[in-house]
């Protein structure tokens, strides 16, 4: 488990996971959107890796552009010496639900970034991954049930979770783990505009530790922190007749 490929690498959770893997001596290839943030992360990991020039490579890319994905994977495989042990997909945005309701274009763009683009990436990765490797994808507890407050985001994440379920079923005989990571509220730049943060909010480093452990164990579905498994079990068990009247 030494060659790690990360999409959406500059997200707070992915960057924290990358640090944990680098601390264990992993080689890492980073893909992210902002060149400046990517460079800052690459430098950080390079320092932590002990300065071996080969350890950390990076490529900035807009993962919404599906046509570019095959070339990105070629480059990642080459950078990691021809094979990949772990892929972490952490790309994503937090849509403004009201803006989505007012604009079809915005809704489709959000479904593309958080749903379609991730599914496209998983499809291409499934063609390349070797037995023994692991594909980990950060989805969300929001994908477990549609709620009026953020169902566009939830629908995209739900699409990915259901897709991963099938993919896991297909790849299990080839010993490729498909890990669906469902964080709850995480205190990151993505959620910075949400003012009220209480006891259920987790720190990105804690979520990252959970991800690394889940990949080690080759888990199927993991809620982070684990309390969300219980919370979502309750929320998904509420009959729709009642649920539709709730303001969640």
């Amino acid at each position, binding site marked *: 488990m030494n060659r790690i490929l990360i999409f959406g690498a500059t997200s*707070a959770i992915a960057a924290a996971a990358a640090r944990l893997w680098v601390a264990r001596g992993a080689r890492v290839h980073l893909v992210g959107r902002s060149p*400046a*943030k990517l460079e*800052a*992360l690459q*430098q*950080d990991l390079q*320092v*932590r890796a*002990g*300065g071996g020039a080969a350890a950390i490579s990076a490529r900035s890319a807009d993962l919404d552009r599906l046509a570019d994905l095959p070339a990105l994977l070629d480059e990642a495989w080459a950078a990691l010496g021809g094979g990949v042990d772990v892929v972490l997909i952490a790309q994503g945005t937090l849509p403004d639900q009201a803006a989505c309701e007012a604009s079809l274009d915005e809704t489709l763009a959000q479904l593309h970034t958080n749903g379609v683009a991730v599914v496209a990436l998983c499809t291409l990765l499934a063609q390349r991954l070797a037995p023994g490797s692991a594909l980990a994808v950060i989805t969300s507890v929001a994908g477990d049930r549609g709620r009026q407050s953020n169902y566009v985001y939830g629908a995209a994440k739900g699409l990915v979770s259901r897709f991963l379920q099938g993919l896991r079923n297909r790849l299990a005989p080839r010993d490729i783990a498909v890990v669906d990571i469902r964080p709850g509220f995480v205190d990151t*730049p993505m959620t*910075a505009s949400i*003012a009220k*943060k209480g006891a259920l909010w987790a720190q990105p480093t804690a979520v990252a530790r959970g991800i690394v452990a889940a990949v080690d164990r080759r888990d199927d579905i993991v809620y982070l922190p684990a309390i969300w498994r219980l919370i979502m079990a309750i929320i998904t068990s509420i009959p729709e007749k009642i649920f539709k009247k709730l303001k969640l």
Partner: protein
Amino acid sequence: MKHAKAWGRLPGVGEARQRPWGDRHAALPTEAGPRIAHGLGRSYGDVALNPGGELLMTRGLDRFIHFDRAQGVLRAEAGVSLDEVLALVMPAGWFVAVTPGSRYVSLGGCVANDVHGKNHARAGSFGHHVRAFELLRSDGSRQVCRPGDADGRFEATVGGLGLTGLITWVEIQLIPIRRPWMAVVQRRFASLDAYWDLDESLAAHHDYTVAWVDCLRGGRGLYSAADFAGHDAPQAEPGPGRRRVPLEPPISLVNGLSVSAFNLAYYHLPRPAFSLQPALKYFYPLDGLADWNRIYGRRGFYQYQCVLPRPAMKEASRALFDRIGRAGSGSFLAVFKTFGERPPAGLLSFPRAGATLALDFPNQGAASHRLFAELDAVVREAGGALYPAKDARMSADMFRAGYPALDAFRAHVDPAFSSGFWRRVADEAPSFPQPA
């Protein structure tokens, strides 16, 4: 809105908007200030608080940029903590040249407060080991500042309390160590005179020196002198354990009786004259107890740290101990050190040739303030100064008296930056609209 608190946990400091800050390439917000960087919140008073204004929460600036393992030069973003720095550099045989008593402080905070350690006599302050930093100003300019630059911005920003702009990254020179262990010599002293004698004989031969003084019993105490150990020390360092103060007691656990008992026990505890201690345990004894500031209860506590310049230091320190002893509100940790002669690194740097005394006092309202006023009078008479990083109450007069370069410093203040501290001590109409 979360309430940012300083380490002293004094109530009633007011709220500030908190803006997470994690991208060193980002421009500062364009809305009017006042704003100030807030890192790990280890300053005791209000230098990193900003009631009615905005706090740039810089813990997101937590990336390393470059580490030259051969030369011991590290460049890292300003929100990186000394704890994170040490985890990286100690296994490579390096240590920070100057460290305060907690490693849960940010690099930016170390620069802005020009912090000192137990080796001031040998090494000066933190700012003496800063090779460069980047300063982002509210006019959008970015400037790499180095010591001795013609515009003087380096010297204004070192010890500049975050008022000259936002420090985005810092480059420091580290010191080589052989083993992460300290060889420590400890001696009891029965009086202040005995302290000066010990200091004279031991400080010349050791890198790190500090004393703990029992103010309730006329200035007796423990002197400790230390150096990094050589190859005879163990290779591996035991990981320091961490305990936590689980809750905030409704009233302070620190009172005359507990302090008296603690100081008595601390003084008489059997101690070896010579011992080896893990470096992290030696430098950061209180970091082993997370949230230790909670023991002072809901009303929080004040730290009173002053420096007494060399000509008056012996007489003035005796006067301070007399007054504290008479007030009967002693302190768990009366830390006494002698600063060396090295000229200060920054315009508003606190360390200067002389002696420094640091004491924690539970917040007892008016009684505390009466004692502080008495102590202030002694410090002023001696030509000394109070330490802004520890302060929550000094007057504008007291600040001006202790920091003669204040007017030269003003020219470097970024107009969009301010703090609760600055509005209190800089007796000049603030240059931004005051919140109602």
